[in-house]
């Protein structure tokens, strides 16, 4: 398995790149470290959306899992006193996974706009519950401030940064291997022609369910990582429909060409937002919205399409 992963060019380069990033993190100013960390965390959710998107499905409700992951971390710390990063992160994935598994039974039968709308509805149900329940923090949410790693309480964010980088590498490699497998090729196959997949003898619903579950877990992981990196969860920043919209936005901005693209796109997004907010505190939405339109019109393949050519060239050179 490990050798199979290493033999994959994308994974190999991603591991090298992320290792360099982790090393660079030691030297980076904290604000850059933070923004990269937020980008990586969000990138996990975008990776999940990419898996769905390759199947032709777009969820306008993945903030549901992002939020579940984030709130799992926050509630576990608040009411359970758990501070360990591994435990909190695990809980985020499990909670999102359980919900993804259950809702998957419903959503796997939906396509196109209906899939998008039902996802949206589910996420807004969670939003409605969170906003109105005082025990769940209502609109205030909670702080997440205690991060320990196996009993060690690190000073500063660097260890958490490394943890998130490691998570991203693992997630990215797993998704890459999955996409290269026959099961992963089904992703495109289902988008192309569901009828044929059924006639070949594979249950499209089951295949979509698996993908949905995977993307839910990734979004949950993203929410958990975000909660720990940011130190705060609240419904408007984690669960509202605008968050789902942002995730889809980053997916389009990144491009579906590679499993690396979501992370690049999400980091770019984080910096665009930071600078927009700094340069134009009263018009930052205008800059973000303008970027979105510009990408749709002038860069339909996303940021990845800019990198794809040199990448493909390198591939050819390597034989």
């Amino acid at each position, binding site marked *: 398995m490990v050798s199979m992963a290493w033999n994959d060019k994308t994974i190999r380069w991603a591991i090298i790149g992320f290792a360099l990033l982790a090393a660079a993190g030691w030297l980076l100013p904290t604000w850059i470290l933070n923004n990269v960390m937020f980008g990586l965390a969000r990138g996990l959710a975008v990776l999940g959306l990419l898996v769905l998107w390759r199947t032709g499905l777009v969820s306008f409700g993945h903030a549901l899992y992002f939020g579940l992951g984030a709130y799992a971390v926050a509630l576990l710390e608040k009411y359970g006193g758990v501070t360990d990063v591994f435990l909190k992160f695990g809980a985020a994935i499990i909670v999102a996974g359980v919900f993804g598994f259950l809702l998957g039974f419903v959503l796997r039968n939906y396509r196109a706009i209906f899939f998008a709308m039902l996802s949206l509805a589910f996420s807004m149900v969670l939003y409605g519950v969170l906003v109105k329940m005082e025990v769940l923090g209502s609109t205030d949410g909670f*702080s997440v401030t205690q991060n320990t790693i196996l009993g060690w309480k690190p000073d500063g964010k660097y260890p958490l940064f490394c943890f998130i980088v490691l998570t991203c590498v693992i997630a990215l490699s797993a998704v890459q291997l999955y996409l290269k497998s026959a099961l992963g090729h089904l992703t495109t196959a289902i988008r192309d022609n569901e009828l044929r997949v059924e006639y070949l003898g594979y249950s499209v619903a089951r295949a979509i369910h698996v993908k949905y579950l995977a993307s839910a877990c990734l979004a949950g992981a993203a929410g958990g990582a975000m909660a720990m990196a940011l130190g705060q969860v609240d419904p408007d920043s984690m669960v509202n429909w605008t968050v789902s919209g942002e995730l889809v936005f980053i997916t389009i901005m990144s491009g579906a060409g590679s499993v690396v693209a979501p992370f690049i796109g999400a980091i770019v997004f984080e910096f665009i937002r930071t600078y927009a907010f700094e340069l134009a505190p009263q018009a930052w939405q205008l800059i973000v919205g303008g970027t979105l339109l510009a990408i749709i019109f002038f860069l339909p393949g996303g940021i990845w399409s800019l990198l794809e050519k040199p990448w493909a060239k390198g591939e050819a050179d390597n034989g």
Partner: protein
Amino acid sequence: MSSNLFKLVGRTVLAGGALAAMVATGPAIAKDTINVGIASFLTGPAAGPFGVPGRNGAELVIDAINAGTLPAPYAKAGFAGAKMNPIFVDESGGNAKQVGEYRNLVEKRGVDAVLGYISSGTCMAITPVAEELKKLTVLSVCGTPRVFEESNRTYVFRTQAHAVGDSIAAARYVLDKFKDQKGYTGINQNYAWGQDSYKFFDITMKKLAADTKASDNPQFPKIFAGQYGTEISTLSLDPAKLVHTSFWGGDIEAFVLQALVRGFFKDKQVISSVGGSAVDSLGKKFPDGVVMGTRGEYGLLVRNKDEPLNKWFVNEYKKRYNAYPLGPSYQYASSVLAYKIAMDAAAEKAGGFPTQDQTMAALKGLSWQSFGGKVSLSLADGHQAVHPVGYGITKWDKDKKEPSVSDVKFYAPGCIYAPAGQKSADWLAAGMPGAKC
């Protein structure tokens, strides 16, 4: 690239060395300018009635301090001699965004301090981050007592008294003025500020007038919901006469407009703890007879107070922004002033430009004459301010064509805040022992 990296490493090492050298007590290197982040709502529904007046109040006072034109005893120019370069940032967009932006202010833009914040939600969210980043942060407006009662803070101060006093004063005021009211209910926003405001009003009423009936259906709509038709119906059906609200910003304005047409204010006695902005923005549309608070000696309640600082503030503000200063204008101005006083005092004590620790030491427990009245950082180990809180009854002044208030009554801090070291909820539950009214 590699050479840049090298420079970066070099700089980090150098900075680390400098920091280590500075850890000793000596004064910091003198500065000509300091950068201070000032957060308030610049977009969204709270921008007009709260964020922008707050920002303006800060801007007015910062400019005056930079130029040295503030009246005595604050006429000395600058913050420990340095000019302040304010960086105004937007508070809207949710708590998580605010936390991210706070980090950017401190870590990217390298501010010397952060001032401001209106929403209790934002304050709760950024306080732990301020502690983590060890950055002096002075909260200006937000009210939830949880900021300091949940845990001890080192780097966070609040120059505004917390919400408990607003609620206790509201209860005391209505019990003083309106004896027989067949119970009370409330409409408050569903987050820290609204929940706390009503909770403490409720407990105080139960303690002070046990026979007054509490409604079993007080309303908690989402903040910035905008339409309250259904809620107004519910409140109308409730037999309670007193309606407590801590609505603020666009919400109080929308609520008043919608309730007004339905004759709500004829039937009910509304107590608004922080609706002052609506009194000005709605002008003669605002109903007479509403019990109105401004959370301190601010805005409407002190508009005609004959004190040099207050007169200067009201006149200069009016001249520059063509409007009366509102509560948030006072609250932001007060934070800026407190920061200046602390910087100056710390500079004097250290004999040079003060470090953050020295400024904080000077700020701790500070008492000062602010624009509306006296404020003391006497709670939470010198981090949380107290000051009198008052209420009055609104009345449109036909002759001057501007709003006015009558029957203004202020309650001294000793009457409405738990003594230092006690949690507000415990103190209230015990029946407010030792309250001096």
